[in-house]
């Protein structure tokens, strides 16, 4: 291969190569791509062009998304075969290549299923078209809340880009601002969608410097933004921007549940929830609450996690995330500060395993906190890091609030009722289902279409 891959902005009139570029490096610091960064003026004009675009018929959209998903996952896009793309994403993001590969396959499945998936969110009484005879007696028609959606994407996991395909299926024109850390995935997906028939003025990729990021949201009708607590707070009151904040997924194990369960099986549930997807996802477990003494479980989990080998991300057997050494050390320092006052079962001597090429594996960490209200239970790290704490009935569901996913292994139906009623919990798994499991009909933190769509009353004379 030649020099770094040129990654152009994908504007409303085609690819655009800006003079301002930033280098995308892999975890060893080697340049992989040169990403062009567009200025505010380009963003403003691109978003205006999206607004002016003529809507593509729904059937064509849905078919094009399916074709694009297939090409994205297994075809050659912009001259880059799927395996080569996945290897690069793995090298750049530090995610195990097997995780990247699985995410691509998942994207293809989601793309093929997109029409069915969005309709899961449609209120049962609503129809799609004002021409539906039901509107003659008055009916809800399911309509978009706007025309242009801005997405401030995250770079932690290629799977995040699966979500906005639903908006595209619903007829939104989309401006994706990729993460400058990992822009390869959205660049490939947008390119594949264009190859599959989406006109350039329906879907743009606008890499920008940090200062210009807001401009992408400014011009759009609605926005989806990934980020930390700061982002969640900033958009807390906004009906226009949907913030995708930290996941802080958790597992609750009560004493009544399968008291004779093999401790190894319980540890397996935790381990899977913590390390699957490389441990970098919002659905990975951050904390485990155990009724009774949490030490045996923490010990068993630590033992299992300790045995995982540290490998470069592009190794097929790799399961742990890799970062540049500096980043890894900074995360390690942060973990050490946060862990003060807890007992380390794993990671006391550090979590950084240098690979000797400038990159380092982030090894799992298991800490035991003193109680269910320990602040550490909300400390979500971008690698397998879990806080285990004792839980008791009096603590109730308070320690489980603010979780994207809660896996509750319990027989206590009252507790389950309370968890279901709790508005700050996104998904509830009952029984030994890892937090990262999902089914094709399940929403991820609610259906995106709940945010994108509304019902509108339509009545016309017979």
């Amino acid at each position, binding site marked *: 291969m030649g020099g770094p891959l040129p990654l152009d902005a994908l504007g409303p009139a085609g690819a655009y190569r*800006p*003079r*301002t570029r930033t280098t995308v490096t892999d975890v060893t610091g080697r340049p992989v791509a040169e990403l062009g960064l*567009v*200025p*505010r*003026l*380009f963003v*403003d*004009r691109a978003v*205006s062009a999206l607004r002016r675009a003529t809507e593509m018929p729904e059937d064509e959209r849905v078919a094009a998304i399916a074709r694009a998903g297939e090409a994205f996952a297994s075809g050659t896009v912009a001259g880059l075969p799927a395996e080569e793309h996945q290897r690069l994403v793995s090298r750049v993001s530090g995610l195990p290549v097997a995780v990247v590969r699985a995410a691509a396959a998942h994207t293809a499945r989601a793309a093929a299923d997109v029409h069915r998936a969005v309709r899961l969110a449609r209120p049962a009484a609503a129809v799609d078209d004002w021409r539906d005879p039901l509107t003659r007696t008055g009916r809800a028609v399911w309509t978009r809340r706007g025309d242009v959606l801005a997405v401030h994407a*995250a*770079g*932690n*996991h290629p799977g995040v880009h699966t979500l906005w395909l639903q908006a595209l299926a619903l007829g939104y024109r989309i401006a994706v601002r990729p993460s400058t850390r990992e822009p390869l995935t959205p660049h490939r997906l947008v390119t594949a969608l264009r190859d599959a028939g989406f006109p350039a003025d329906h879907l743009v990729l606008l890499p920008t410097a940090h200062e210009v990021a*807001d401009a992408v949201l*400014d011009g759009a009708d609605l926005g989806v933004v*990934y*980020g*930390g*607590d*700061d*982002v969640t707070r900033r958009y807390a009151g906004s009906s226009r921007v949907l913030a*995708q*904040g*930290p*996941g802080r997924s958790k597992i609750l194990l009560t004493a009544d549940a399968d008291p004779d369960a093999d401790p190894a099986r319980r540890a397996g549930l935790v381990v899977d929830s913590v390390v699957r997807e490389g441990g*970098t*996802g*919002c659905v*990975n477990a951050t904390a485990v609450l155990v009724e009774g003494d949490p030490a045996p479980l923490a010990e068993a989990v630590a033992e299992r996690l300790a045995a995982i080998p540290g490998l470069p991300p592009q190794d097929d057997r790799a399961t742990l995330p890799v970062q540049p050494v*500096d*980043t890894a050390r*900074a*995360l390690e*320092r*942060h973990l050490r500060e946060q862990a003060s006052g807890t007992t380390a079962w794993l990671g006391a001597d550090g979590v950084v395993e240098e690979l000797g090429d400038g990159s380092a594996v982030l090894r799992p960490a298991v800490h035991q906190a003193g109680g269910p209200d320990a602040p550490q239970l909300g*400390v*979500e*790290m*971008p690698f397998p890091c879990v806080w285990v704490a004792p839980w008791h009935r009096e603590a109730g569901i308070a320690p489980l609030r603010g979780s994207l996913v809660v896996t509750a292994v319990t027989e206590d139906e009252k507790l389950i009722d309370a968890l279901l009623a709790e508005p700050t919990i996104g998904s509830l798994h009952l029984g030994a289902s890892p937090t990262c499991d999902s089914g094709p009909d399940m929403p991820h933190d609610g259906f995106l279409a709940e945010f994108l769509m509304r019902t509108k009353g339509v009545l016309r004379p017979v």
Partner: protein
Amino acid sequence: MSHDFEQLRDPDEFVRAAMQWHFGPDTGSPYWLDRARSLEFDPRTDVRTFDDLSLFPNIVNELRDVRVEDLVPRGYDGDARPVGVYESGGTTGAPKKVVLLEDWLTRNLGLWADSLKEHGVVPEGNWLNIMPSGPHLAGPFTTRMAQRSSSVVFTLDMDPRWVKRLIAEGRAEDARAYAEHVIEQAGHILRTQDVRFLMTTPPLLQRLARREELVELVNRKVDTIIWGGASMDADTRYLLRTEVFPGTRLIGNYGSTMALGSANERPGLGDDDPCVFDTLSPFITYTVVDPETGRRVPYGERGRVVMHHVSRSALFPNNLERDEATRTEPRNGSGGDAVADVAPVATFDDTQVIEGVY
């Protein structure tokens, strides 16, 4: 000792004569005569060449508090004719004040007119300043320029310090509303009046560019847009020239209040060329230095911009600006450097851990 040193064109000779003027007991300003006592060198004997201007400390921060009368050289002998007092933006603390004297304004306007002519601009017609109102230098320059052809300057009300405060307080929505309020004022003028020259800043020009109606009016009516007061990146410049305002001439302008003026971009640059600013040597000059050592960087390399203003009316040497630029060979072999691709100094955050997976 020549009091008419502004006729000299050799930069070294010019600087030597200027030192005699600004530090002569009968001709220097009260500020500089007093300030000279705490300098570690004698400007009249030690500043022999243009490059020796770098001996001076950067005194611009002192201009926040100096009485403006103390800035006027005594050599004018009561005949200084101040045009007005102008202030820096106030980005970093209290604004700095300078006095603009008539003789310098006249000379600078002459240089400006020459430069516009080189750009092929016939400076006859009305101006619209979409610029800060109040104590900002752009005002008197455009007013005089318009007067030369019996034309007028349309102005509007705009307080950039209020906008900065809104932004500092995180009131982005209010800042946006204020900017729109400014554009609305400009829109009314563009709709109803003949405007041939538009003077504005890059952020406001981009805000104007969002309104198709105003873009159409500008392309139809305006001959030349002069932008300044902030930097413009190469991509924005390219898009403005080729896509947004193809019907007009777009000329960049770079300077500062502390330089008492500004220079237009080099004539003849293409849409894709780096935007180069030549100095108004020997009066307003730039050098591009390594901020650590203070030494000039080689041609073609990035460094911090230092500005000097040397005229009869004022001496503001060795002012380290908050801009970076590529050091470029000057056109006329004069003192100082031409500067290209000017941009604010990049600030780098230390590696900061932000919790969460995103």
